């Protein structure tokens, strides 16, 4: 690495500094837009006691499901358990601490974390288990819950295109949580499908400016599909 060139040559280098008990954000919705290679590398490092922040936990044998299976995650902050049987079973047995968070609140907590806002009020979850133990306030006749922001030691993000300075473009619904997470990591690592030279991306079309990004690695992706549906 030199100057503002943030490209690293190996996955080991991409996750350098990751250690036990850290908090890690991982982009993706289901299996769409997940940083596949970085997740695989996390499994290899063998770090344990992780707090993982991600909308879902992949499926049993792919995505974050791999880290659940290897019991490297202690606490999972997510909105949906969904179709991951390992997740549901570890949650019901109490082995895994799960903080279920409404999807929009989760997205905004991460956005706030990256934007230097410590907490915000939202009507989402008022009067439900999600609001238990949290400060509430009535504003103009409506009830709101105070939700603290989220940050992470590492944010692992998948982008479609990155230039070497870390300017990012996402593709279709693979964007999902990736843009906010890119802003909320102490160290933000991007696994990109394509890495290009500065100037090749139109500045008008950049979704995430390079200031948020620390490391970039060239990925290769399986892009597994969870619910393959085609027109009859």
């Amino acid at each position, binding site marked *: 690495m030199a100057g503002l060139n943030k490209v690293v040559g190996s996955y080991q280098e991409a996750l350098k500094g990751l250690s036990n008990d850290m908090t890690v954000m991982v982009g993706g919705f289901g299996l*769409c837009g997940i940083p596949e290679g970085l997740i695989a590398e996390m499994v290899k490092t063998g770090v344990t006691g992780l707090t993982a922040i991600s909308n879902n936990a992949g499926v049993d044998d792919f995505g974050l499901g791999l880290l659940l299976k290897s019991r490297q995650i202690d606490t999972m902050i997510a909105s949906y358990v*969904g179709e991951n049987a390992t997740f549901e079973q570890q949650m019901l047995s109490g082995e895994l601490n799960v903080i279920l968070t409404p*999807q929009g609140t989760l997205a905004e907590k991460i956005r706030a974390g990256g934007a230097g806002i410590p907490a915000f009020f939202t009507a989402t979850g008022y009067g439900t*288990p999600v609001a238990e133990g949290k400060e509430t306030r009535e504003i103009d006749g409506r009830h709101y819950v105070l939700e603290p922001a989220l940050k992470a030691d590492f944010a692992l993000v998948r982008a479609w295109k990155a230039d070497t300075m870390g300017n990012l473009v996402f593709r279709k*619904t693979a964007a999902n949580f990736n843009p906010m997470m890119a802003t909320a990591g102490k160290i933000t690592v991007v696994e990109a499908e394509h890495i290009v030279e500065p100037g090749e991306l139109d500045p008008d079309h950049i979704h995430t400016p390079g200031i948020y990004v620390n490391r970039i690695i060239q990925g290769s992706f399986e892009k597994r599909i969870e619910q*393959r549906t085609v027109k009859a």
Partner: protein
Amino acid sequence: MALSREQLAQRVAQELQDGFYVNLGIGIPTLVANYIPEGIEVMLQSENGLLGMGEFPTEETIDADLINAGKQTVTAVDGASFFSSSESFAMIRGGHVDLTVLGAFEVDEQGSIASWMIPGKLIKGMGGAMDLVAGADNIIVTMMHADKKGNSKLLPKCELPLTGFGCIKRVLTDLAFMEIKDGAFYLLERAPGVSVEEIVSKTAGKLIVPEHVPEMNF
């Protein structure tokens, strides 16, 4: 006859208006997209970051980067846009979506809804449902009126953990279309061939029945 899944979707589709932006939940609500009335233009929002959801792709056009909130592969219509999850929920929480349709386990006479977990049995997680019910003014809940044993799912008070408190105003079940106001269910329409007596017997919450209850039209 109780409504089929398709008829539930068809009845909801009658509530669509030209120019609406609509979020359809997983399950029966998704089927509403098949019954958009002719001559009406609506845009479907999928909370994972798509406004302008189209039909399912073909084997040739399938794209792993283009899915809906149910994680199914979809397409995007002309005029569609993609965005982040925080932008998506700004639309939802900010009240910009004209109609939200979602399923539920239970709804009560105060308009509270339970849809995301059954303690000790099933934990799906709330996904975007808590944001959707808190952010939208115009919500239709589609659900079964009673369980297989005949126990009502329209209650005086929800027994399961809530998804939202006092936020539901309209419920369509396989038996009836109802409005919720002033702490009661108001019977608006009944499914073709379903008697008012059956609806009354399967509604545990307070139910107001007007003199004349029209049958749904399809």
